[in-house]
């Protein structure tokens, strides 16, 4: 049960990312979500199902039109991955920079 893989898989599709982008502005019905796309309502519904499966989107059971809502939880996992990777390389490159400076400074004891 690798929920992060499921999240990333769901995010890998441009249509689904566009749907999430729309939902970041607020709840929307399936009809509203389908509007900007040249695809059938059924096709859009399928994408929404994938997003629901990944926990990125939830659908209200109260209202009859069952609006879709963005769920930030799984995004947090993705963000964690991206952030840890980014920080790792940022630190690496800083250290590389410092090391290069040291190598180019005459009388540095390290090498050459």
């Amino acid at each position, binding site marked *: 049960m*690798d*929920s*992060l*893989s*499921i999240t*990333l*898989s769901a*995010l*890998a599709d*441009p249509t689904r*990312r*566009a749907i*999430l*982008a729309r939902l*970041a*502005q607020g709840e929307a019905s399936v009809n509203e979500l389908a509007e900007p796309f040249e695809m059938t309502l059924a096709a859009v519904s399928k994408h929404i199902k994938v997003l629901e499966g990944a926990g990125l989107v939830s659908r209200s059971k109260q209202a009859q039109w069952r609006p879709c809502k*963005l769920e*930030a939880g799984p*995004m*947090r*996992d*993705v*963000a*964690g*991955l*991206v*952030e*840890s*990777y*980014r*920080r*790792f*390389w*940022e*630190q*690496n*490159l*800083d*250290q*590389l*920079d*410092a*090391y*290069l*400076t040291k*190598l*180019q400074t005459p009388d540095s004891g*390290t*090498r050459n």
Partner: protein
Amino acid sequence: MNAPATQNLFKTELPEDKPVIIMTRTFNAPLDLLWTVWTQPEHVAYWWGPREDNEIVDYDVRKGGKWRIVSSMSDGTKIVFFGTYLDVVPKTLIKNTFVVEGQFEEDDRFYEEHRFEERDGKVFYRSTAYLDSFETRQGVIDSGMEWGANAAMAKVDEILARLQRG
């Protein structure tokens, strides 16, 4: 010759149309030197990762070659980084898979691309990490893990904002 470090502009981009991370920066060093420092294990030990103690187990910088670095932390924790070189063009390009044992699985479709270009005696560096392939990897990231996954929360808004712009 002592240019301030602040001249080395560092930038991270998370483009909205692809799950990639792009990092760019400048190094105040000639390309020859940077390439040596990047590709020779005796140099890598000085700048790699957590750096308490790095053991460069493999570092075969050529297409198909492997790399493996074991970083030991002061508390005894060991972090193992490894991968395979998918492509190497001397002083221009390195493409490699990036694996952290227990966090990232090896997958040819998750790779880093490092590009180097010399301009006026400095090196412009650009890396692109392709994350698309994580859908197939098995590893689970634990947000409490060693190397700084905790700032995750703050990133959520940023990523959402980027999605929003897309």
